[in-house]
């Protein structure tokens, strides 16, 4: 069986979700680490160094293209699988006690993913897109730290960011474990550890992200 035919079955599509998901998880770690430099409260100096490196290094810029490609694949395959799965039961149960056998977030990955995507569109259009546009037309990099400080004075933006982080947290609680289950790594020996690390990751990383707009809004950092 060829790899093309491998990836075309429901299990193969799920593996694409898993691999792209793990790539996006590693991206989150890098993104959270760099942005957390703002908590030094040094006027954005340390953050500025790393942001400059990420914005100009050719290797990182190449990986960035991969990031968008994988994000797109994750979204498209997610929608394809969602449509198939929803369509596989045309006549619905009159009574269904689903909460007794599964968790709401594991059944709501499509919804949570859509919320994250909507948040990402806003987020990218606020920081990444204007910065790259400025670089492309030769005006150089923008002062991302200053932009964060200004944008996060708006309480509406802060609330949207926190809601985006909450959607991400629930998406990750299922997504982290699920990615490893799909790779076949959740044997009885490792299942507990993978689930525990997944829950920890799902709390810590979105919390670091959520603290950024909150910290600027409450002027913990200047």
């Amino acid at each position, binding site marked *: 069986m060829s790899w093309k035919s491998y990836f075309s079955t429901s299990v*193969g599509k*799920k593996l694409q979700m898993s691999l792209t998901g793990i790539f996006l998880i590693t991206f989150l770690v890098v993104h959270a680490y760099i942005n957390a430099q703002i908590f030094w409260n040094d006027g954005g100096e340390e953050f500025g160094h790393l942001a400059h490196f990420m914005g100009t290094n050719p290797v990182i810029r190449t990986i960035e293209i991969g990031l968008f490609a994988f994000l797109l694949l994750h979204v498209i395959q997610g929608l394809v699988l969602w449509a198939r799965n929803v369509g596989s039961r045309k006549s619905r149960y009159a009574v269904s006690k689903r909460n007794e056998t*599964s968790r709401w977030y594991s059944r709501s990955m499509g919804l949570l993913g859509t919320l994250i995507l909507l948040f990402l569109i806003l987020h990218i259009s606020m920081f990444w897109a204007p910065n790259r546009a400025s670089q492309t037309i030769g005006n150089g990099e923008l002062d991302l730290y200053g932009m964060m400080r200004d944008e996060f004075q708006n309480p509406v933006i802060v609330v949207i960011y926190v809601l985006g982080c909450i959607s991400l947290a629930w998406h990750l609680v299922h997504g982290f474990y699920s990615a490893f289950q799909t790779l076949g790594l959740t044997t009885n020996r490792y299942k507990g550890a993978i689930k525990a690390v997944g829950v920890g990751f799902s709390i810590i990383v979105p919390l670091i992200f959520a603290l950024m707009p909150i910290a600027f809004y409450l002027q913990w950092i200047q």
Partner: protein
Amino acid sequence: MEHYHMNLTLKVWKQKNKNDKGRFETYEVKNISSEMSFLEMFDVLNEQLIAEGKEPIAFDHDCREGICGACSMYINGRAHGPWHHTTTCQLHMREYKDGDTIVVEPFRANAFPVIKDLVVDRTAFDRIIQAGGYISVNTGNAVDANAIPIDKHNADEAFAAAACIGCGACVAACPNASAMLFTSAKVSHLALLPQGEPERTTRVADMIRQHDKEGFGGCTNIGACEAECPKGISLENIARLNREYMAATFRGGSKNSI
């Protein structure tokens, strides 16, 4: 436990055939013993219906001791009712009290079309088995059962997977109507044994392909199947199926090679 009697209201799905739209009918049953099984309660209802000159309710059943996988029913929002590791025939009326209303539906999935009332067509499972859930054995004298030594751990795991009775509760419970737990149990119990080795690379790919072709949804690792399985088939089998599928592709095997 104290023995008692109860009167119940049943809302049961009635559907003439595959093409009928179907609807709920309400029935009253009286003087049901707490020691009856759920299916015996249905026997009482059907006898009552026959006595009244009405058509009885069609439902699947066979061994009535929880091992054949024939009975189904989605009872008050749960496949095989509310009890853990239990088929409908082993669900007993002591679960209910006088005056309760019970809603009974068929297992619902596109791949399980309703034949009549609560009876659904589960032959999709047979076709998944036909696609690869077998081993090749040459004819001749029966081989001594203990001729091939098998690792104790693998033997136990294979046996646990082979406990799948193919009832379809995993499909009924799955929000995606996926049959991945069933398929993974059938892949697992053969993949773990030396007898399953000759078809190992073709089996998993062919069975997954047939699973998809039957119109079951994909697995999204929700775990409702494992929670609802009357035989306690573990999600670890799905992890194994995923590994087997990857390994099979590396080795490049499938009888329907494309």
